[in-house]
């Protein structure tokens, strides 16, 4: 079976600075895959380049999604193809209400009934969003903003979701809850998920497979279980 998302010999340059150096990755339909690695390893750069959210001039290599070459296709087009990203730092539209944020998330859809149905599903996952529909995005708590960011991505009814550090800046109890939901989205709704996570322990427990990034390269990839047991990984990322 060919992969839903395939990244081949991918490099990224910010001007002359070479930050991602020949990454190969693939994610098959229905999988839940994680990327772990230290700060500055190039995880965000890779994810955002996949989604076409970085200046296209810096990309080398080939990215295919759902059988189509999407290298430098433009972020809006890629989103419309069903590859949605919850970008690092949440990026809620702070002066739009929760409802309006979700409306922008559904921007590329025209099927009103489908949108309403998905909205109900999202409210089931995150009941707090429903209670705060009229509130401005910027006034939500960090956890609620993350829920909104995920909801805004889900409402586009994507085939695959990329999440960049969904636990960033959240209290442990909140991000456990969010991870449970991400798992649910993968298992029950069958969405393919690729997520970046600083909390390696949690990431490897949640994901079926993982890629380990180090200074712009993939230094290891294996199942979540194997990585969790690997002595090197334990030493470097799991605190011994």
């Amino acid at each position, binding site marked *: 079976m060919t992969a839903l998302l395939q990244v081949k010999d991918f490099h990224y340059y910010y001007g002359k600075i070479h930050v991602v150096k020949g990454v190969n990755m693939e994610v098959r339909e229905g999988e839940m895959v994680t990327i772990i690695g230290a700060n500055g390893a190039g995880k965000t750069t890779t994810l955002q380049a996949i*989604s*076409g*959210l970085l200046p296209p001039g810096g990309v080398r290599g080939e990215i295919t999604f759902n059988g189509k070459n999407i290298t430098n296709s*433009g*972020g*809006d087009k890629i*989103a*419309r193809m069903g590859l*949605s*990203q919850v*970008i690092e730092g949440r*990026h*809620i*539209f*702070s*002066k*739009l209400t929760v409802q*309006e*944020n979700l*409306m*922008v*998330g*559904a*921007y*590329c859809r025209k099927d009103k009934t489908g949108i309403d149905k998905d909205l109900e599903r999202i409210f089931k996952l995150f009941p707090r969003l429903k209670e705060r529909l009229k509130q401005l995005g910027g006034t939500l708590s960090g956890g609620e903003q993350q829920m909104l960011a995920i909801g*805004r*991505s889900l409402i*586009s009814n994507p085939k695959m979701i990329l999440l960049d550090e969904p636990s960033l800046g959240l209290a442990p109890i909140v991000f456990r809850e969010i991870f449970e939901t991400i798992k649910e989205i993968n298992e029950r709704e069958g969405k393919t998920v690729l997520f970046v996570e600083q909390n390696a322990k949690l990431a490897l427990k949640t994901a079926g497979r993982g890629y380990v990034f180090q200074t712009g390269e993939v230094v290891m990839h294996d199942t979540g279980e194997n990585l969790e047991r690997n002595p090197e990984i334990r030493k470097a990322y799991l605190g011994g």
Partner: protein
Amino acid sequence: MLARVLVSGLVIGCIYGLIALGYSLIYRASGLMNFCQGDILTIGAFLGYTFYAMLKLPFAVAFILTIVLEIALGMLLERAVIRRLLGKKVDGTYIVLATIAVSYMLQNGAILGWGTRIFYFPPIFSVLSVRVFDINIQSEAAFCIVASVILMIVLHIFVKYTAYGTAMRASAMDAKAAKACGVDPAMTIALTWGISAAIGGLCGMLIGPVYGVFITLGAAIGRKGFAGAVIGGFGNMYGALLGGALLGIIETVTTAYVSSIYKDVVSYGLLLVFLLIKPTGIFNERAIAD
């Protein structure tokens, strides 16, 4: 007397408000001040005059043709000048200077096309004036107020309640996040420039029949519109409308009860007062203060 003064204050105030709104929309979308807003109004007035008075087209047709051409002009300006400069990471101040350069080019272009004399619109309506609450209002003036208010409501509904308008606001707030939602920020920005130019053109078509059409018609209105936008809170749609309307009324009252010599002193004095004491304007918008 006061009622009549207030009405003519409202006529010019509506125009200031709409021009101020144009500044605010563009500030939100591209993060800069576009100083050709006023000259786009002039072009609109000349185009409208040409279609209606010279080519004898029905007013509604002249109106629509003018708006369409102005949308094209606004989008062209964004694509040919603004986007290129932004892409080169030119400092915002220089891009604002570029809009001033374009402003003079539009003025000179208008001289080439129409010369320097003043043109008067033939009457648009068969009745000269309408009577409201015991005062006679020139038909064109009444039309200006009514059409402005309708335009404000239409814009409000478009920006606030339609999917496209919401996407426009979203991409002005956070282009990357909007892109990740499938919105094309390049398109929404171009469209914002188109809409602002359309507002300018429409104002030209509304105020031309009241004031006459001449080369510097828009330049003065453009500066006042800018002052109105600051007073209302730069970047805020509703602040722009309120600031502009207020300015129009204040300057008309000054002209009527003090002297027209002082009207600009009062208007620009008010601008300075706001810049010094409350740069966030009536609606407390942070754009200038930051």
